[in-house]
Each structure stands twice: as structure tokens, then as C-alpha cells.
């Protein structure tokens, strides 16, 4: 055996080939589902060093921001990607960002004295409840007064509203809520919903003094 051959065998036997840099990333030997089961975020090296001091080296002092390749941090998903219906999964996996953005817009429209009532409108009741709780929590985190009470119209009103298209149902429900004093005074209703079966984004609207307005 030549010296070069011996080197290759030695490296192989010494375990170097098990190092991902030499044998290849372990991703090569994972299946499609495993490769798709992680969620990653790219952080700047400084931010990654602060969060994971033992695992990420400190950035060099002279590193230019544009030269920072960043660090990819990944975590396994709690749910497999196909465990929930596609639209539910798409919405729930971005729930905090979407609800946070809508709650910020809604909160900016009214003063601190407003009392917020929140509900979500989504075809699946468990998902609707998750959305409503996320919205309520987000508003409360912003320091706003949030009521646990969900304003409920009379059965007759609901029966009529159920026949209306989205363009009319929310303004009509808003008007009716103030007419029947389900909401009054400083009450503000914050609704989060989808309006199309094939969309994966949430929309928001607020109802105050009988007037409904969609959030941009």
C-alpha cells in the first residue's frame, strides 16, 4: 500500500470521515420529511454570539456589517408539517407575527381608555379560539384593557347576518351590536378573520360607536 493510500485509510478509520465537513452534511442521509421538519432563522453573528455564547464565536471587532455571513439557528418543529390542514398550519405557524401586526394597528387607533373585546372568525373552531386568545394576549401585552367577554348578538340577528357576504356582515354586526347595546360607550371590538378559503393571511377590523373599519 502506498503512503497516500494509507493516509486515506487512516483518515477513514480515525473517524475523520464522520465529520460532516469531510463526509458531507448529515442532511444527505436524511429523508425529505426530516429535512422539512425544522424552522430556521438567520441571525447576525453578534446576535447569535449573545444568544448562544458557547456555540458561536464572538465576531471580530473589524467585521464590516455587509461581510457578516450571519448564523443560521434552527429548531425542530413541534408538529410535523402535514399533521394539520394546510391552511391551519400556514396561519398558525405565523400567528404571533400576523396577530401582532394587526393588534399594533388596532391599538394605535384608540386611546388607553378603550375597553377591548376580541373575537376571531375562522372555519375551524379550535383554530379560531387560538387566534382569539393570541389577539387578546397581544393587546393585553401592549397595556390595553381587554375584556374576557365576547359580545354576542341575539339569535335572530345572527341568523340574518349569516346570510350576508363578508363585505356587509361585519359592518352590519358592528352597527347592530351598538344598537342593541351589546357594545356601548368606550367599548371597541377587534375582529380577526379570514375572508377567503384559499388565503393564508389574517385580516383585522375594529368596531367602535357602531362603525366598522378594516385594518390595512
Amino acid at each position, binding site marked *: 500500500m502506498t503512503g497516500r493510500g494509507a493516509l486515506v485509510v487512516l483518515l477513514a478509520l480515525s473517524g475523520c470521515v464522520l465529520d460532516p465537513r469531510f463526509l*458531507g452534511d448529515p442532511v444527505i442521509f436524511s429523508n425529505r420529511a426530516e429535512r422539512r421538519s425544522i424552522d430556521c432563522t438567520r441571525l447576525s453573528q453578534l446576535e447569535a454570539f449573545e444568544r448562544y455564547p458557547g456555540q458561536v464565536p464572538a465576531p471580530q471587532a473589524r467585521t464590516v456589517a455587509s461581510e457578516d455571513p450571519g448564523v443560521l439557528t434552527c429548531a425542530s418543529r413541534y408538529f410535523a408539517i402535514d399533521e394539520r390542514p394546510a*391552511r391551519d398550519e400556514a396561519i398558525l405557524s405565523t400567528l404571533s407575527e400576523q396577530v401582532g401586526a394587526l393588534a399594533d394597528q388596532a391599538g394605535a387607533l384608540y386611546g388607553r381608555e378603550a375597553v377591548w373585546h376580541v373575537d376571531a372568525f375562522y372555519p375551524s373552531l379550535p383554530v379560531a379560539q387560538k387566534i382569539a386568545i393570541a389577539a387578546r394576549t397581544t393587546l393585553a401585552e401592549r397595556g390595553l384593557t381587554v375584556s374576557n367577554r365576547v359580545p354576542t348578538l341575539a339569535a335572530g340577528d345572527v341568523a340574518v347576518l349569516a346570510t350576508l357576504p*363578508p363585505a356587509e356582515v361585519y359592518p352590519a354586526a358592528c352597527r347592530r351590536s351598538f344598537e342593541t347595546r351589546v357594545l356601548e360607550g368606550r367599548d371597541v371590538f377587534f375582529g380577526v378573520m379570514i*375572508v377567503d378559503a384559499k388565503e*393564508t393571511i389574517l385580516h383585522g377590523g375594529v368596531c367602535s360607536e357602531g362603525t366598522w373599519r378594516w385594518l390595512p
Partner: protein
Amino acid sequence: MALALHQRPDVRAGWLVVALISTGCVTVYQPLVGLQRPIAIDPSWSNTFEGTKLHLRCHQADGVEADVLCRNLRTAFSKQGAAVTTEVVRQPGRSAMAPNVDPPQYVMDVTSRRVAQSASVVSTLLCIVSFTIIPQVEEYSFAQDVTVRDSQGFILAQQSFQERFVESFGVGVWALNGLIDLIVRPKEEQVTGDRYKEEFSKDLHGHLGQVLYNASVRARVMRSFEPDAPVRPPEKPKGAAP
């Protein structure tokens, strides 16, 4: 003095050529941000964007051929019924779209760029020394930033995606994976060949379609569900040739 067969230069060169000819790449695609999420639209439907006028702007960035990207996306959206025009923006902030010439309903800006690339010199050396039995491994990460605006410039949807490609070059990894592909892996799991391109394109095109669909719904909500105003072509100046 006669050399042993394995020490003769022509035999060594022959082995090197055989190793290089029989070697190959194994590229694995892994979605990192956004692309692994499911979508609610079906990209195989031909009428999802029926009647939609889309202007697609692909921005030139490091490591990505914007014109190829634009061409592929144009095909993907056209198959779903959209009327697509494309534009490759070579310099940031300089769009060549002529104002008021048959204005599109939506303008989609796509910037695809390489965000990271890593290759080990040690891995390359070992690959050469071992006649590619030990693979050379390179990793590329790319990001796509997508923004959809309406004809007035109002941002309707924004999203970013990231993915990485791990490319292993060498006879060992190629032969091993080729064998596994042949015997064990179902077609959708295979890693040799161009399978990774198909998988990535399917993910990216599907998600861009979903972003456009979401943008169109948001536009509808912003108009309070009023029907979309017809986009009028500019009036021709008097006396202009038809």
C-alpha cells in the same frame, strides 16, 4: 529499474481519469425559512389568477441569475392564468417600467440572493488526495425577498424565504447515494440528478403564488370588497397612428 504497476505515472493518471469520469454530485435541498410551510392554493390549477395582470420585477443580486428566475416565474404564473410582464432590474432602484402603459394590477418584486457559501479547503484537498472517495462538500444558502404592491404602490404582501443546498462531489458519496436511490429511495426522495431543482422550484413557485393570492385578497378587503376598477390603458394623443 522497472516501477510497480500502481507506481507508473500513466496508470496513476488513468485511475485519476476513471475516478473523475465516474464521479458525480449529490445535491440536497433543504428549505429553511418559509418554504417548508404548506400552501392553501393549488398551483396546478390553470385559473387561479385568471384575469390578473402581474408585472414581475426580478432584482439582480449576488449569485443568482435574475433573468432565469424571471423567466421561470413568468411561466409558472402564466400557467395559472395570469397575464405576466417581466423586468430584470440590474441596478437597485432603477426600474424601466414605463408609467401608465397598460398598468398592471399587481407588481411583484423578487430579490433572490446568496446569503452564505461555505467550502472547506481541507475537504477539497482530501477529495483530491483520495481520488474523490472522500467527498468535497460545499454549502450554499439563498434568500428570496418578495413584495407585492398594487398599481398605486401600496404594499399588499411581503415575505421572505430561505433555503440551502448542500452539494457533495465525489465518487464515494455519488455511488453510495446512486445505489440507495436505485434500490431503496422512492422517486420523490432521490438525491442524485436534478431532483433538488424540481423540489425547490415547486416550493418557490407555490409560495410566490400564495403570496400573490394573499395580496389579491388583501387588495379586495382594502377596497371594502368593491369590484376591482378596470385598469384603463392611457389615452392615445390626438393624431397618433393607430
